[in-house]
């Protein structure tokens, strides 16, 4: 036993990306070609060989999506499964309404998380992500809405109290304004801070130099 780790460490788990080519599962283009060797080698606990591409999103058209489409029509834009997880894209202006419907009618009563992703090259740069969970069904559902920079997104604070802080964090980090939020202020950064750090155009070394200088009395916050 004692010898094993030293044998395995260097080859199997580098902490920094080496210059070797990506192998096995990670590279999608390599995936179809690879499945055979692990199976043939018959390693006792190798990952199960992938017969089909596990990364391909599958269009989702189950009862839940049908019911949502019945209620909200075109406001339910797309639905698919990514790595077996359900994602439903909805129109941003109907977000709060659909969220309330999901809570009351579909029993997705826990707002697990609310966050955003920035895609600056897209016309509507932000994805607003609501991660819902249903205790009754033991299921997760991810609602997604696209919003342009400066566009107001309806707040779901009326639906879940926890959205209060989560939307504040979203505003703080991305500058997304939630319409109807009772107290939309920064939460993690100081109130006078300029800029929204999790936007892609905010460099990792960037900071609010004026704020740092005034409040910390130093040249750099690094």
């Amino acid at each position, binding site marked *: *036993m004692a010898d094993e*780790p030293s044998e*395995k*460490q260097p080859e*199997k*788990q*580098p*902490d*920094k*990306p*080496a210059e*070797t*080519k990506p*192998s*096995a*599962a*990670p*590279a*999608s283009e390599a*995936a179809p070609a690879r499945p055979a060797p*692990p199976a043939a080698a018959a390693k*006792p*606990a*190798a*990952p199960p060989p*992938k017969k089909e591409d*596990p*990364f391909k999103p599958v269009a989702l058209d189950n009862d839940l999506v049908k019911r949502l489409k019945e209620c909200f029509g075109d406001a339910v834009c797309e639905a698919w499964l*990514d*790595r077996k*997880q359900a*994602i439903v894209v909805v129109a941003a202006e109907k977000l709060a309404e659909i969220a309330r419907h999901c809570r009351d009618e579909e029993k997705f*009563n*826990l*707002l*697990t*998380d609310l*966050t955003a*992703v*920035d895609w600056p090259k897209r016309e509507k740069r932000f994805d607003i*992500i609501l*991660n819902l969970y249903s*205790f009754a069904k*033991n299921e*997760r559902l991810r609602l997604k809405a696209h919003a342009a920079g400066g566009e107001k997104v309806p707040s779901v604070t009326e639906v879940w*109290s*926890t959205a209060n*802080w*989560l939307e504040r*964090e979203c505003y703080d*980090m991305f500058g997304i304004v939630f319409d109807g939020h*009772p*107290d939309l202020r920064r*939460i*993690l*950064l100081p109130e006078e801070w300029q800029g929204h*750090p*999790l936007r892609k155009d*905010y460099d*990792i070394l960037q900071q609010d130099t004026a704020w740092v200088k005034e409040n910390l009395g130093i040249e750099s916050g690094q």
Partner: protein
Amino acid sequence: MAENRTTGFPNVDATVLGADEIILNMGPQHPSTHGVLRVKLRLDGERITGSECIIGYLHRGVEKIAEHRSYQQFAPYVDRMDYVAAVSNGLGYCEAIEKLLAVEAPPRARVVRTILTELQRIASHLVWLGTHALDIGALTPLFYCFREREEILKIYEKYCGARLTTHAFRIGGLQYETYDGFEQEVKRFCDDFDRRIDEYEALLTTNRIWLERTKGIGILTAEEAIDFGATGPILRASGVKWDIRKALPYAAYDQYDFEIPTGKTGDTYDRYLVRVEEMRQSRRICLQAIENIPTGPIMAKVGKVLKPAPGEVYHSIEAPKGELGYYVVSDGTIQPYRVRVRPPSFINLCAFDKMVRGHLVADVVAIIGTLDIVLGEVDR
């Protein structure tokens, strides 16, 4: 006192203080706030009529850092969020990336991960119990709790060389084999630990001062807990029997028997009972797991450079504090496009205002303790 003093609470309905009301500031440097939490309390005499948490003092931009590191490079950073339960953070992150890559850790790795994570739950609850009791005025449990926690940290140190920020797991499995005598040491700890929990309970469970200070304090009903997104022991103490280890099993939890303790009233005392019982259950899981650790490899076949296919994944685990989730978006490069951490402490803290209203200043200390927050995770 002059009239028309403002409250400093933009979100509280009345912005003007009543004649008898004052604002009291607690923290950020205060021993009972468990780190750099600052709380503004609006008081009518000793009673709390409003509160506001001011957080962010420990904000390091973890999610931003993630976007500028490779998948493996970011793994040690997650240990620095909930630093009293670093192993749990690492498990959540590694499993999330494994899901993103569609690989699975080998059975041996999964079982060892389960053992280490359950020990971490015990260690985290011990820190909570010791400090919570200390805040309320019971000095002795702190020494007892830290004595047992030390045993767990020694196991970690022997396993991977670090005690707190362990980085014990790797994407795809484990870096290190278990050391000789690992099972025996875990067994020795568990055999001994049952008696130790009895000792803590003897000090607290029927202690009159403890009962007075915790019963009926900071009540959260099941509906409120769900509304505020509370998870983990806080949700369970409110009577919701929900544990991710059972509901959506990960690692090797589907192989073991354990109970999910729940409370009835959702007060501070119930949360105490739930967490104490969780330590007993964690001990049970460890004992079952060391009986039969599968042999075989400890790493799945993952590349040296991880380039997950574009897409996204959400994976969460039952961390000691609640649901710890990672939402990871890949754009097909070696760096994650976005890593969102769903921090249990941050979201559990949302219910703070609801819990303290109507209580006395001294109870605030009990409520901060019972929420079991770690500011490294609240602020990230």
